[in-house]
């Protein structure tokens, strides 16, 4: 992927750059964008400004802070222009250089990621503290250097956040029951670099990639399995340039591959109506639409129901592109939070459970539940949590 070599000056020299210039100004991108109505410069207008030689106005507006890197525009562009992958990162990098002030929360998240390896500013030496509460043995490479089949890259929210730790415990138990041979990096693990957030900060992304590649090279494993779709995409799209050549899976499609051995273990009936939210990274970016649904359908008692916008049309939870740390900013601007918009859609299905497969989503949707007062109507669970629940006696 030529993200690093394409710059605004060199746009016309690279196929990806020339691609951008084939825009027909149809406006489908702006129409699909969940914040298209509040963005000063959605992709269409951005390209028009570029052609008019007025790009400076784009970087000096804070319009790009509203982009949550959801890939909706890119998925719908009739020209197939790689908007989210090429154009938007270039624009965001320039915007950061021109913004008089970066919103405080996002700034702190970036600084914390650099210093402590996680956006929350939690101590790196507590990253694996949750392991003691997992209830099943979890091997840490630094303590036991034997090779493993899978390196389970746990990631930040799933290590430090209480609800994220629920997910990790569930994942560990499912892996254990399936006899997966895995180990984790423990306190050596640092954020993989979330593409959306770090389009603002390519320098930080490089620092993280250098670090993680050096740690990977200390141990022997065949594949990386990760709980975080953003990490998955970082490993898939950016790390190969630094030599990442291991197998790569996100937990959900990984477990779906083991469905024939998993299904007999799902003995407990969960009589829930479940609606599944396609995360942007697993869904539009990688087209992992059916794997999570297969897993859910395999749970006895579960009835699946779809939201109005599903699969390629799913509405982002608003966490990408740095959005996880821009809620204050959005609120000040009077934008509706995307997580609230999506949750209303979920509640409209009358489902008992909103199933997700990205750690950001649990946090964002549970937040929205409180704000909207829907906590009695619907609960949020990660697919892996439901699987673990179905395995209980």
């Amino acid at each position, binding site marked *: 992927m030529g993200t690093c070599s394409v710059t605004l000056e060199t746009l016309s020299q690279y196929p990806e750059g020339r691609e951008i210039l084939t825009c027909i100004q149809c406006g489908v991108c702006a129409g699909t964008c969940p914040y298209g109505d509040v963005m000063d410069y959605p992709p269409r207008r951005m390209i028009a400004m570029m052609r008019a030689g007025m790009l400076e106005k784009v970087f000096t507006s804070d319009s790009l802070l509203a982009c949550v890197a959801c890939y909706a525009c890119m998925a719908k562009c009739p020209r197939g222009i790689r908007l989210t992958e090429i154009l938007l990162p270039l624009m965001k990098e320039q915007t950061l250089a021109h913004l008089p002030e970066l919103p405080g929360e996002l700034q702190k998240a970036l600084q914390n990621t650099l210093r402590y390896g996680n956006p929350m500013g939690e101590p790196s030496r507590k990253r694996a503290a949750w392991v003691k509460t997992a209830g099943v043995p979890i091997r840490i490479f630094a303590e036991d250097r034997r090779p493993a089949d899978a390196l389970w890259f746990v990631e930040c929210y799933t290590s430090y*956040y*209480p609800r994220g730790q629920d997910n990790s415990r569930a994942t560990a138990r499912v892996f254990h029951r399936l006899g997966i041979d895995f180990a984790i990096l423990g306190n050596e693990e640092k954020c993989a670099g979330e593409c959306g957030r770090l389009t603002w900060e390519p320098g930080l992304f490089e620092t993280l990639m250098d670090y993680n590649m050096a740690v990977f090279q200390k141990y022997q494993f065949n594949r990386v399995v990760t709980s975080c779709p953003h990490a998955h995409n970082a490993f898939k799209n950016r790390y190969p340039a630094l030599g990442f050549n291991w197998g790569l899976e996100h937990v959900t499609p990984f477990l779906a591959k083991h469905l024939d051995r998993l299904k007999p273990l799902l003995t407990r009936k969960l009589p829930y109506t479940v609606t599944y939210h396609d995360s942007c990274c697993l869904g539009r970016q990688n087209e992992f639409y059916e794997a999570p649904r297969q897993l859910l359908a395999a749970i006895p008692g579960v009835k699946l129901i779809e939201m109005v916008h599903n699969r390629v049309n799913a509405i982002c939870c608003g966490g990408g592109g740095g959005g996880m740390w821009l*809620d*204050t900013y959005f*609120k000040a601007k009077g934008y509706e939070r995307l997580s609230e918009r999506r949750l209303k859609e979920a509640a409209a299905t009358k489902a008992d459970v909103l199933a997700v497969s990205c750690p950001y989503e649990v946090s964002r949707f549970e937040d929205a539940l*409180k704000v909207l007062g829907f906590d009695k109507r619907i609960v949020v669970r990660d697919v892996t949590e439901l699987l673990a629940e179905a395995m209980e006696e």
Partner: protein
Amino acid sequence: MTGPICVLAEQWRGRISEVTYEALALGREVADRVGVPLTAILTGCNCRELTRMLGAADSVIYVDHELLAEVVPQTCAEALVQIFAGARPRVLLVPLTNISLGIGTFVGVRMGVPVINFCKDIRITGDKLEAQCVMYGGKIEATVEAGAPSGPQPVVLGIWPGVRPADKGRAERDVPVMDMPVVLDDTQAVRLCRYIEPEAGDVDLTKQEVLVAVGRGIQDRGNLPLAEELVKVLGGALCGSRPVIDQGWLPLSRQVGKSGLMVKPKLYVALGISGAPEHVEGMKDAGLIVAVNSDARAPIFNVAHYGIVGDVLETLPALTAAIDARKAAAPHA
């Protein structure tokens, strides 16, 4: 002969600060143990009547000078150096507050004596002085010794507010006062021009019986409504620690702590507040202190009466719901 234990009384806008009584309480303990007098030192201009408030001391040295009307650390230190030229104290306690910060350091360097900050306890045995100090934002306790050459050396000790209960150092009486003149350089390199009062807030925090305080743990301005819900069911008002005000999530009139307000409500609920000394200074005397923090080791749990370790964003709505439910169940109880 060992000199007295001296306490620099802090006065501002015509009143003796609470921290002075706290310092006198500590000073009294030390003076009694060592068997030397406790002397309070009051500097100011036309405020001799305030010496009555320093009755916990055996005597008061009062220094009146136009240039001491408002505290300028170098000027105040110069006055102290002149007072001590005749009779050196064993110890000088100086509060580490907005008003007095810096005075202790200047006295130390101009008299050529050691300074020990963050002190909460003092032990003097013969020529040796040992101080118990709380360092690194409250995380580490250190036993510190002041270098002891021949003979007892005066030591300047900087103390945080809250070192002892203020009531133990409060006594109003006709205490012996010694007026001491000083000669001060009137070039006035540092001069107070005016005070800027805070904007009239809608709410006077100091009059509230219940305060719900939010800190960094609330994470996001967008989460304030969760705290406002708690205020609705408990009554009282919303306030915050410095980081919340600095970010503009609450106005300055809602700041509790060293640079904000000192409050003494019946109930203080600290949500996502770590408990750094600067904040604790403002609320440690509340009747009942309840703290919620995700870090079990947060210093706030040392000053709180009840604590919950947990994510504020989970615990807060649970608390609101629990109180709501209880009120609904027994509305006339």
